[in-house]
């Protein structure tokens, strides 16, 4: 939506295609906050923000992109505030900022623990305003299925209309992908049912390169058993992580930063504790009791509600059972600093894209900021390119015809397996074999598992043959996306023979290897499956150092 707003304000006519109503997007579930060096709470600077991000990325982030993010973040936050965003305030009535993991200063602007919610609603308010002005249309519950590429440029998206049924080619001189992540590849994830990597998969199949696919971030505090996110803000507000004995075990892994070490570090520490038998029911405990009722109620009301509803625990009186869960995918469609991909007319921003500002590990509070800053940049660049392109393009609709044939084949199949079992097996095996810690033999095994599942998927059956709100169909398509992306992930992980950020190989390559792997992996799709190559990291002023917290 941020891209759409900027494209509209740049002068383009804009259509938003979304498989959910826009306010249902999973950005709304982000809780803790959004990072910008405003310096309201303590001294801070964009330079410091950039350095923390570079270090957090385990030096895999592209430093020019990170500097842009850090520099432009404050202006973007002020813009959101002037649009009416309901941020929390400090005593002076300025935007309040809280500490977050691996940040050198309290930098995270927030709204209690529903920051994503207030952001998504303020953006939709601005979208509605522009709909009223004319020139912006929202195609709600349109499922983007394929990119239409003609004469070497992206000319539109083939969509399935969920409400009415039927395929449609939505054309545009520029297309911006902003479809989010793919946490649903894992059984234990904070992500919504909608997060299936749609944009990455359709770009991959349109011939585009995906970057850094091996890096999936595991969030250290996802609620047991449901997997929903308990915000890092809980630790930012002073929460403890304890094991079954009550010990604040982070002191043994990150003696300085303790609970506020980087997410990859905390997730590994928790996994080590749980595997050593010091957990409780396969979890560790997030303890907020010492914060007292008042602080929990005013700063973390949403987390309390989640813990009470889904785990039966009131955090004012009892610690919350948490464990690492798949949360955010650092990789995605490769873009430049304006969101442009290598395919003319195609842009990407947010979790679907990889600029890369997060490198091998994202810092909490940076993803919302990335969606806003790079969403704005992609929207502007896409609109400028579209406006500069004054010619009329004939669109043949060949891709639409291809999609129609594909759909017919899929719906005509009556003998075979329904998707859910394949989906469940993919989720469970990815968690087992490609989770927080990665071992070569398990990764090899996972490649075989994926190959087997892909074979079964060839014969998948869609039971609902109807045209109206057929989620049986869309879920089957989404499963196909996830199977392809899982293959890309594991293959890239197996090839990265080092431990960096969220990619940890304790048994064979426990150290970072800058000599061989201070570079991005690039995955392209071929007839034989994903093909890997590598690309240099863009560095400006920070050389890799040993990373401790």
């Amino acid at each position, binding site marked *: 939506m941020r891209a759409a707003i900027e494209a509209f304000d740049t002068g383009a006519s804009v259509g938003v295609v979304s498989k*959910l*109503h826009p*306010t*249902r*997007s*999973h950005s709304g*579930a982000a809780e803790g906050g959004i990072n910008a060096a405003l310096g309201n709470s303590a001294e801070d600077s964009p330079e410091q923000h950039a350095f923390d991000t570079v270090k957090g990325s385990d030096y895999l982030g592209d430093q020019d992109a990170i500097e842009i993010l850090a520099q432009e973040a404050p202006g973007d936050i*002020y813009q959101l*505030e*002037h649009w*009416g965003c*309901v941020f929390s*305030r400090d005593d*002076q*009535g*300025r*935007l309040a900022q809280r500490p977050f993991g691996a940040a050198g200063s309290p930098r995270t602007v927030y709204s209690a623990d*529903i920051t994503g*919610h207030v952001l998504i*609603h303020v953006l939709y*308010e601005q979208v*509605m*305003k522009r*709909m*009223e002005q004319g020139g912006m249309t929202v195609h709600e519950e349109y499922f983007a299925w394929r990119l239409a590429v003609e004469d070497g440029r992206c000319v539109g998206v083939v969509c399935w209309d969920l409400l009415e049924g039927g395929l449609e080619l939505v054309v545009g001189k520029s297309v911006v992908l902003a479809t989010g992540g793919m946490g649903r590849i894992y059984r234990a994830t904070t992500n*919504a*049912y*909608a997060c299936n990597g749609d944009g990455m998969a359709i770009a991959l199949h349109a011939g585009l390169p995906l970057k850094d696919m091996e890096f999936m971030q595991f969030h250290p505090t996802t609620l047991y*058993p*449901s997997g*929903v*996110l308990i915000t890092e803000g809980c630790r930012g507000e002073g929460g*403890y992580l*304890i094991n079954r004995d*009550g*010990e*604040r075990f982070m*002191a043994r892994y990150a003696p300085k930063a303790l609970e506020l070490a980087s997410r990859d570090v905390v997730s590994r520490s928790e996994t080590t504790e749980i595997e050593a038998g010091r957990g409780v029911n396969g979890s560790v405990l997030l303890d907020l*009791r010492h914060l007292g009722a008042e602080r929990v109620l005013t700063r973390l*009301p*949403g987390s*309390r*509600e*989640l813990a*009470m*509803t*889904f785990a*039966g625990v*009131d955090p*004012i*009186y*009892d610690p919350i059972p948490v464990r690492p869960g798949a949360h955010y995918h650092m990789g995605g469609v490769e873009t430049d600093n304006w969101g442009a991909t290598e395919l003319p007319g195609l842009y990407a921003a947010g979790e679907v894209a990889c600029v890369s500002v997060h490198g091998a590990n994202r810092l909490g509070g940076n993803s919302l900021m990335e969606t806003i800053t790079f969403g704005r940049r992609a929207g502007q660049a896409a609109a400028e390119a579209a406006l500069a392109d004054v010619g009329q393009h004939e669109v043949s609709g060949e891709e639409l015809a291809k999609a129609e044939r594909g759909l017919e084949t899929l719906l005509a199949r009556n003998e075979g397996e*329904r998707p*859910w079992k394949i989906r469940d097996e993919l989720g469970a095996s990815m968690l087992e074999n490609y989770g927080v810690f990665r071992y070569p033999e398990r990764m090899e095994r996972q490649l075989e598992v994926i190959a087997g599942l892909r074979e079964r998927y060839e014969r998948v059956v869609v*039971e*609902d043959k*109807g045209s*109206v*709100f*057929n989620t049986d169909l869309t879920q089957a398509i989404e499963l196909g996306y996830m199977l392809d992306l899982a293959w890309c992930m594991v293959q890239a992980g197996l090839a990265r023979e080092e431990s960096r950020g969220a990619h940890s190989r304790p048994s064979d390559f426990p150290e970072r290897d800058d000599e061989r792997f201070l570079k991005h992996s690039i995955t392209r799709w071929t007839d034989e499956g994903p093909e890997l190559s590598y690309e240099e990291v863009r560095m400006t002023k920070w050389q890799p150092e040993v990373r401790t917290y």
Partner: protein
Amino acid sequence: MKVALKIWRYDAVAGERALREYEVDAPEEATLLDCLDLVKDRVDGTLAYRKSCRMMICGSCGMRMDGAAVLACKTRMYEIAESGHVPVISAMGNLPIVKDLVVDMEPFWRKIRAVTPWLEPGYSDPGERENVVSREEMAAIHKESLCIMCGCCVSECNSMEADPDFLGPAALAKGMRFVGDARDQARVERLQAYSEPHGIWDCTRCYFCQERCPKGVDPRDAIAKLGAEAMKEGIDSDLGAKHAKWFVTSAKTTGWLRETELVPKTQGVVRSLKEIGFAMNLLRHGKVPPPIPPHVAKHVGEARALYDLVKHEGREGAQGIVQVEKPLSRLEHGESGYEEAAARGPYGPGSFARPFLPDENETEEEAGT
């Protein structure tokens, strides 16, 4: 556990409606949404419902259980299944059904769009820094900002059932989110627009929206606050506003509600004349006191003092509305059954050990004893 559900299926193409029963084997922590997923995966792939975040924030999965709107992802099934009850699941009310549990949300969003749902800051250049707004000022719209637009309130709205054009609880709560925002410069225009027919005063105060809101937004409170703010601005041409205004005057002057004056003050003299027969009947049966002489309450002074206090404290508008306090940031909000934990306290007997750092083992033991 075995969970049985009866689901109202609807096929829009054939126009057929049918109540079907399903049974699934679900884990104890399963929610209604989890159970629907099990039905769709293992029993009937054609079942249609919306879902996404499964954590009560995206607002997709509003539906009815036994006739009352719920978020499927927030509804735990354990107690229902244990009791042997088979709940009836159906689509939300007041919105056209598309298929099974999916409704057409366009009429809902049309009403949201009708309240000018964006900030009108009164300037176009935002300047260098943020607006300075105090915590207290922001707190005024805390509840309204929690709205996830799920439609549960609209589903249950009695007034909308009678008048489909009624703006409804969600849109009006959205309106209050801007009226109460210190940064908004279109407050009066908004209050005028919301006071038109089908607006603020068409709410019948049945409180169903308040009851069914899964997020503690309390839309009826928002509507009450809008009404109070409108009257504070002198926007009182609607019958509802006049009615409310006369209540105050009546209470202030005599300490009683004077029904015989209420009708002409609200509806005007001409329309009241038509009601004379009805009024005489009421009078004859002792349902209303005779208008003359005015009946003055013994402690009318207290009513007047209360009126002066509200005025003195500047609580004539939204500030004066006593609100139901169900929002997230209240201790009382949430499932019941936590009294036990509250009674023992966070570190009482049976609680989890007090946390300690590895190198302060000894001090911890002291603290623990």
